[in-house]
């Protein structure tokens, strides 16, 4: 056993135990750690944004820069400042301007590439080609995938009553969806256990020095 003498390791260890104490029941130690976490998180992010974004991208070029183009920076500053109009009951409609620009630019950038990357490529991935059947496993998997995509899409087609052939196909779709939920749930359990293992390793290795 080789207990840590680092004060920060002790603080981290105690805060971990404070948070885990919630598993027994809600208590002041847990509340303290929770509030501390939120406060530090907000403070850390604010400072980081200030020093990595506002100072180098706006303040320094505007105040210390020499290019005459630097004054164009005033336009995004003014548009961004309109976000604070939310605090005025009379002028809060002004917030629509930066939000409209943000959504407009974001949609313009995202929509064509989203279609390309998340829809067309995925549809391409379901197309059965001759070469897939060179290997039995790949061929079989491709057919399973193809049926799964069609059946699941039919399940989410609500303009026709799920009866007869459509109903049976939708039922197959439900099986696929349930299997997907099961896989997702299994992975979620694995993730949560991994986080617990990570903290236990910290307590047993970094703090108490029980394990190597």
């Amino acid at each position, binding site marked *: 056993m080789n207990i840590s003498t680092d004060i920060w390791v002790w603080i981290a260890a105690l805060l971990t135990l404070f948070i885990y104490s919630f598993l027994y029941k809600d208590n002041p130690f847990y509340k303290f750690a929770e509030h501390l976490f939120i406060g530090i998180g907000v403070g850390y992010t604010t400072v980081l944004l200030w020093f990595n*974004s506002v100072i180098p991208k706006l303040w320094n070029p505007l105040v210390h820069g020499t290019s005459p183009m630097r004054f164009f920076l005033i336009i995004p500053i003014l548009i961004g400042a309109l976000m604070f109009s939310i605090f005025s009951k009379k002028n809060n409609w002004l917030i629509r301007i930066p939000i409209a620009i943000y959504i407009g630019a974001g949609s313009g950038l995202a929509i064509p590439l989203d279609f390309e*990357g998340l829809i067309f490529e995925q549809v391409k991935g379901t197309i059965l080609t001759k070469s897939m059947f060179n290997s039995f496993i790949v061929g079989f998997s491709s057919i399973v995938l193809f049926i799964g995509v069609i059946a699941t899409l039919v399940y989410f087609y609500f303009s026709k009553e799920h009866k007869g052939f459509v109903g049976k196909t939708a039922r197959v779709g439900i099986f696929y969806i349930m299997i997907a939920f099961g896989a997702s749930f299994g992975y979620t*359990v*694995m993730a949560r256990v*991994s*986080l617990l293992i990570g903290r*236990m390793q910290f307590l047993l290795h970094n703090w108490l020095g029980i394990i190597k």
Partner: protein
Amino acid sequence: MRFFEKILKIDRRWIFLIVGIVVIIPLIFPIGMPVLTTPPVRSLYNYVDKLQGTGKAVMLVTDFDPSTMPELLPMACAILRHCFAKKIPVYLYGGLYSAYVGMAEMALEKTLPDFPDLQYGKDYIFLGYVPGVSLVILGMGGSISGTFNTDYYGNKLDTLPLNKMVDNYKNIGIVIDLSGSASPETWVIYGYQRFGVRIGVGTTAVSAAQYYPMLQTGQFVGMLGGLKGAAEYEQLIKKAGIPTGRLEATIGMDAQSFVHIFLIFIIILGNIAFLITKKRKV
């Protein structure tokens, strides 16, 4: 019958306690259960390995914060060790959001002591945070130095030798996004679809299932899923004779396996208890 009724009414805190014990015991008394390598992990490893000597760099992105650190930090360390040992240039990018940059710093602190010959600016560069998310990914397609101006330490990027050779995706062999969020999709959309840069992903187990379709379409070169993925990569670099440091993910796999066995047992037991008590009520 009363046993099954009791099972259904058991205080959940007993389950928490047992899970805690099942995690702690294998950590103290490890048995070293085998970690088998899966194709998505091997594919990523092989792709990175083949970059050796090509002059192309790996861009490793730490898009995660401390909440997912146990799964993703071992991946970052293992991939860094792989690149450092094979002399593959590395751009370590501290993530698309401001809270992530500390994770990249931590990964460097854990790996650098084993590679004392590395030169900053020549063998690796550490990029800090700049706002913009998708705009940053798009910007790097034109110029990395133009997008970031300076590295994490405040050095002008265009003065660093590595940046003179690699200043956009043309000389980036692969971007590996280690993510606890949906950022791999962002990299695929703006990096792969727009510029054709290859993407690898290391993700939390929670997100792994949703990324298999992108693996199947070839949009991802390979994938490390959760602690298991990290352990597999650790085993691959260990087999290659690369200094591994403390194998954090591999050490955790015994506990992971035992907890899974316990959870399978209680899920089956809970369902049997439910069915039997339900039948009795009818």
